[in-house]
C-alpha cells in the first residue's frame, strides 16, 4: 500500500532580533508543531535562529515567472525614485 506522504512546509527563520524572518528551505511534517520541531533540528543546529515560522507550502501563492517583465519592468525607468537622480548644488549640506 502506498503510504500517504507527510505534507511539505516552508521554513522561515529570524536569525537575530531586529531582522526579518527569511526563507531557508522546506521540510515534511504532519502538523505545525512537528514542522517547528523539525525546523529547529534541520535549520538551527548552529544558532542560526531565534525564531521560526512555518507555513504549509500549498498555502503559498507565487507570481508567475512568465509575468516577470510585466510585473517588474515598469520600475526600471523611474530613476527619479532614487535620491541619486537629483543635483544638489555645491555648498548645500545636510540634504
Amino acid at each position, binding site marked *: 500500500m502506498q503510504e*500517504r506522504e507527510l505534507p511539505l512546509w516552508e521554513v522561515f527563520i529570524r536569525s537575530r532580533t531586529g531582522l526579518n524572518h527569511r526563507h531557508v528551505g522546506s521540510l515534511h511534517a*504532519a*502538523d505545525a508543531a512537528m514542522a517547528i520541531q523539525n525546523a529547529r533540528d534541520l535549520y538551527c543546529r548552529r544558532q542560526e535562529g531565534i525564531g521560526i515560522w512555518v507555513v504549509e507550502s500549498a498555502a503559498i501563492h507565487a507570481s508567475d515567472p512568465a509575468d516577470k517583465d510585466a510585473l517588474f519592468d515598469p520600475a526600471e525607468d523611474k530613476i527619479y525614485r532614487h535620491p541619486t537622480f537629483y543635483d544638489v548644488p555645491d555648498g548645500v549640506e545636510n540634504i
Partner: protein
Amino acid sequence: MYTQGLDQADTAAPSPEEEVQLRDAFQARIDAEEKIEPRDWMPEDYRRTLVRQISQHAHSEIVGMLPEGNWLTRAPSLKRKAILLAKVQDEAGHGLYLYSAAETLGTSRQEMLDQLLSGKAKYSSIFNYPTLNWADIGAIGWLVDGAAIMNQIPLCRCSYGPYSRAMVRVCKEESFHQRQGYEIMTVMARGTDEQRQMAQDALNRWWWPSLMMFGPSDGDSAHTAQSMAWKIKRFTNDELRQKFVDVTVPQAHFLGLEIPDPDLALDEETGHWCFGEIDWQEFKQVLSGNGPCNAERLGARRSAHEEGSWVRQALLAHADKQRERSSAHEAA
C-alpha cells in the same frame, strides 16, 4: 529549496521549433551564469540529470550515516561521542536539504525513497565498506569528507538555484567533519605503536575507495560533457581526483603515514602527485551491489523505514483528528 506546489509546469509542451528556441535561450542564460529556478523552463534532460544527481547525492548522505553510526556507542570518550553525533546529525541534515532541492524538480520524496529502498537508485560506493575500528572514523572524516568537500565546493556554483543553495549550506557544515577526522588521525598517529598501526591500517583500507568517490575516469564518464555545458559540473572527475590527491598526500606525510600506492610520485615539473591505476573492477562491483556491505546498508535503511511506518501513520492520524476538532469547534 522551494515548494513542490510552486513547481507545476502549467504550459503545454512546446512544438519542435519552439523547443529549439527555448533551448537556445536556456543555454544563453546558463552561459551568462544566471541561475535556473524551479518554475523556469528547462530541457527535460536537464531536469532528469539533476533529479538523478541530486537524489543520488541525498541517498549518499543518508546511507553515509550508517558506517559512522556504527561507532556512536563505542566512541572512546564523551567528547568524541558528542562530536561524532553532531557530525552524523549534520549528514542527516544534508540528506534532507538535498531531497528538498530534488523535490523542486517535480519528483516526490516518496518516489526517491522507493528508488533507494528498492535498490534501483545508486548512492556513493564508499559507504559500502565496513568501519572495523575507531581509526576508521578518523579516516572517514579526513578522506571521505575531504573528497566530498572537493566534489561539493564547485557544486555551490551549480546552475540550478535550489541545488547550489543547498550545497552552500552543506559546505559550511562540512569542514568541521574533515577536521575532526584529521584530529582523530593525528592523535592516533602520535599515540602508541598499536594506535599508529591502526591509523595506517585505516588509511590503507580507505585510500583507494576514497579516490573512487570521484567517479569513473573522464574517458568513461558518459555525462561529463553535457553536465559541464549545463554548468552542473565545473570540473571533470579526474581533475577533482587529482586536486584531492595533491592536497591529501602532504597531510598523510605530516602524520608520518604512508599512502598505500607504490606508484605514488611527485612530478617536480607540474607539482602534481602521480598515482597508480584505480581498481575499476572493484568500483563497478561495489556500485552494482556487490560491495562488502551493500546488503547490510540497504537492509538497515529498509527496516528503519518499515519500522517507522506506524509512527508516520500515527502522526498523520493525529494531525487529521486535530484538524477535524478545530473545524468542528469553529463551526459550533
